[in-house]
């Protein structure tokens, strides 16, 4: 092990705090923004906070399973982005807007 590696000078709790802050920023964005595309971006931000925590735990514990879970989270994020953006484009064709407040008229 490299003696001046980050693992000796930095506790994992700092990564926990950093990921918590990023996750809460993403949540704040989801709660405050009305644009559906920005909403999807905030969800990506929250997913990345979780990814960072997975990688931190994986590196500190020395088990590569955490990094593989990051792969699967990225797969889900990519699928979600593709389908979500397709839905937004379709709604934009009908309403000429991406305001989530208008999406409740999709009944029926």
């Amino acid at each position, binding site marked *: *092990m*490299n003696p001046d*590696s*980050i*693992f000796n*000078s930095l506790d*994992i*709790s*700092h*990564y926990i*705090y*950093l990921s*918590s*802050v*990023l996750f*809460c*920023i*993403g*949540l*704040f964005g989801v*709660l*405050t*923004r009305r*644009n559906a*595309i*920005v909403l999807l*971006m905030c969800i990506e*931000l929250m997913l*990345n906070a979780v990814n*960072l925590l997975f*990688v*931190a735990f*994986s*590196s500190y*514990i*020395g*088990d*590569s*399973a955490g*990094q*593989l879970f*990051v*792969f699967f989270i990225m797969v889900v*994020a*990519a*699928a*979600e*982005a*593709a389908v979500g*953006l*397709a839905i937004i*484009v*379709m709604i*934009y*064709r009908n309403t000429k*807007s*991406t*305001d*989530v*407040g208008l999406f409740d008229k999709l009944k029926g």
Partner: protein
Amino acid sequence: MLLLGLPPAFLILSFITILCALYVVTNNNPVYSVLALVLTFFSISAHYVLLNAQFLAVVVVNLIVYAGAIMVLFLFVLMLLNLNKENEPLIKTGWFVAATVSAGLLLVVLAAALHRSSESIMQNPAENIGLVKNLGKVLFTDYLVPFELSGILFLAAMVGAVLLGKKHSAEENSNSDTEPSEK
């Protein structure tokens, strides 16, 4: 000061990450939000390098898949839809305050719940687990079924996105003066 003893690389990267993330959620122009999100992903990749997750960070995954593919997709959709600052929908002040309070409360709860949790974690950092040889070995032995399932999920997402994004041209020609009916 609590933060002074930390390595400067971690401090600077965390500062950039949080600053860019705040810019993403507070900026009213969606294009700037996307660009700030790309910067956030770059700094998270730098965190991965610090954590010895080299393959995940640099070679393929985070930079190419996230900062490359997904964010370019967002940028294309934003520019195709011609959204700009003038027609950006805004939220009421009361809702803004409520959202700030609830996000701050969640942060307090998370920090309190995870405080001193690192004492119960067995720390055994190994240098080579982030290399592609090691990751590939685990991915194609222990996680083979989830890997195949994620392929199926991708196929379903691709078919769904194409089907949703496709214009129903025959339908629009036949009843262009009536309401577009559900297929």
